């Protein structure tokens, strides 16, 4: 078979992945105990590492702020009368999703062993994640319900049906971009949409491909970012322009990162003629913005 196009076959190591791998290989033996018992635990994921990544490399000159997803999630959980235990990177390590899907099983096993030990010590009943990848990894690859008896929820499932009320600052048209891990792999399509329906003044439209047929953001597990993956992303962004939206909402920080990166790149190079006249936001950031407006 003759191939005319060259394919890149290496796995690049972004900065934050090197940090996570170094972190995984340092074994911590001492035990840890939370100050008081909690029913819920909130796992923010590697958003801190992502911020480090986009600031240290010149991949993204925009104003993407990933740590605000974690802050917004905690604020929303408190608003719903939930007092979560924050399972941040001081105590826990990365869930290991990217390492697993890149085939680095040694790193994944080290991370999993550490996190399982910490989860056993924490004594929580339910763990909730704002990241779709962490959600899938905890539910399927760690199998927490089967091994430790801890229920795993995405944050949209936790917030669903708790009588929350939001008000959008103005009449905005939003669309929800289904992350592959939350939608196709875990089968959750309705909880984020229900949350968006709660927002007064926001009109939700469906993109051309939605739910099972939703297009991917193009970079899964930080494998690489090349012309082909950018084309996948641009196809998704074009669908947003076709639907005439003001905001695209994602349920996964990785979707937010890659989409926002693409939008910023287009704004920096206006000569290329690709322009999408809207913003990408994480669902949690959007909801907390609507919350503040009401207060």
């Amino acid at each position, binding site marked *: 078979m003759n191939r005319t196009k060259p*394919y890149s076959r290496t796995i690049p190591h972004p900065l934050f992945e090197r940090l996570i791998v170094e972190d995984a290989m340092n074994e911590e033996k001492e035990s840890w105990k939370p100050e008081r018992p909690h029913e819920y635990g909130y796992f923010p994921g590697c958003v801190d590492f992502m911020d480090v990544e986009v600031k240290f490399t010149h991949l993204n000159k925009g104003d993407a702020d990933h740590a605000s997803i974690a802050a917004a999630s905690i604020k929303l959980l408190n608003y719903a009368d939930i007092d979560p235990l924050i399972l941040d990177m001081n105590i826990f390590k990365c869930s290991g999703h990217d390492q697993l*899907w890149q085939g680095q099983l040694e790193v994944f096993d080290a991370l999993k062993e550490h996190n399982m030990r910490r989860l056993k010590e924490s004594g929580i009943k339910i763990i909730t994640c704002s990241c779709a990848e962490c959600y899938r990894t905890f539910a399927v690859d760690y199998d927490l319900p089967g091994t430790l008896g801890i229920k795993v929820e995405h944050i949209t499932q936790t917030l669903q049906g708790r009588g929350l009320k939001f008000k959008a600052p103005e009449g905005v048209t939003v669309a929800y971009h289904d992350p592959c891990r939350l939608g*196709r792999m875990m089968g959750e399509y309705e909880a984020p949409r229900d949350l968006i329906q709660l927002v007064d003044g926001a009109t939700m439209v469906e993109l051309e491909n939605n739910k099972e047929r939703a297009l991917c953001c193009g970079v899964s597990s930080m494998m690489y970012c090349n012309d082909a993956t950018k084309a996948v992303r641009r196809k998704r962004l074009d669908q947003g322009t076709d639907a005439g939206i003001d905001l695209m909402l994602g349920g996964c920080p990785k979707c937010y990162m890659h989409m926002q990166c693409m939008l910023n790149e287009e704004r920096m190079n206006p000569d290329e003629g690709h322009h999408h006249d809207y913003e990408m936001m994480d669902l949690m950031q959007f909801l907390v913005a609507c919350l503040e407006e009401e207060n």
Partner: protein
Amino acid sequence: MNEDDAVEMIYEHQEEQQSLDTINKLEHREEHSVLEADMVKGEPLYPHEVTRDSVLSLYIIALFFYLSAFIPPPLHEAADPTAGTAFPPPLPDWYLLWAFGCLKVAWDIQILIPLSSIPFLGLNDIHLFLMTAKVWGTLVQGMIIGLVVAVPFLDRAIGALIDPQYGDVINRGHERRPIEDPVRAAIGVYGIALVIMLSVFSVNANIAMYYPQVNTDVLSQLTLWGPIGCALITYIFLDRRRSEGAKPLTDEERFDLYTDGITDRRMQRIYEFKLNRCYQCGLCDDICPVRDMEGENELNIIFNTFQNEHDGVAMWSCITCGMCTAVCPQNIEYIDYVLEQRALTTMGVSL
């Protein structure tokens, strides 16, 4: 005429030619289509092959007639299974014993007309032979084979009589596991047991030579009641299992059975078990976002994996979005395969 006008004219001419070509292709699409070209290859059944086969068959039949008419039979008279001159009697091969048994259990069918019971006439009874045992026993063999051939037709006819919607059994099939249909399973067990008992009955003289107490009467009773007993036991057992609530196995249970039963080549993952179900419909290929962007016509993902033909490109450029699994009619979990292949490839490479 200046240069721009000339260029414009050339463009117009080219466009016109292209549109003409397109119309031409559309009109003669059937003549040039690959399918059409494939279909005219080979010869039609009628009259080509029918004529050739008929000539050959008739030639061979004529040859047999010639030989049988002019060459006397080398053997003597036809064999008589009831003669019993030799001891122990000659037996056919083991796989034909059931047919021999049919000949032996057959009886003369005769009708008794009891004329002597009519008073004042003084007539004798009349025994009317309908069939001798030889003819009847031979016919039974044909009837058994005919019954096996007729099973699908009878099955559908009876089903349609009982439940009119059951008539489309050809489209949806019916239950195959014995537990789901105890009646058919019992009938099948009856047939197998009957064949075995007929074979045993056919060697009755040889058995009686060593075990005199097992005489012909005992054997004939066993041949009659044994298969019926087997069928009843099967029906009762299966019906009880059904009432206990035995359900069809799930994919995972079937996979476990499979791996327990096979020791030479053990399938390691459920995706491998499911990958064999791929019938190359190509839906995954149509929906794949990667193929859309970089593969053009070359990246038929699951099909190539099935054929072991992908060279690693699909494995590393896959973005594991799971769209192929979402559209797959067989629900093959392709990304599990990608996950494991990546782990195998990077083993020892990472750190």
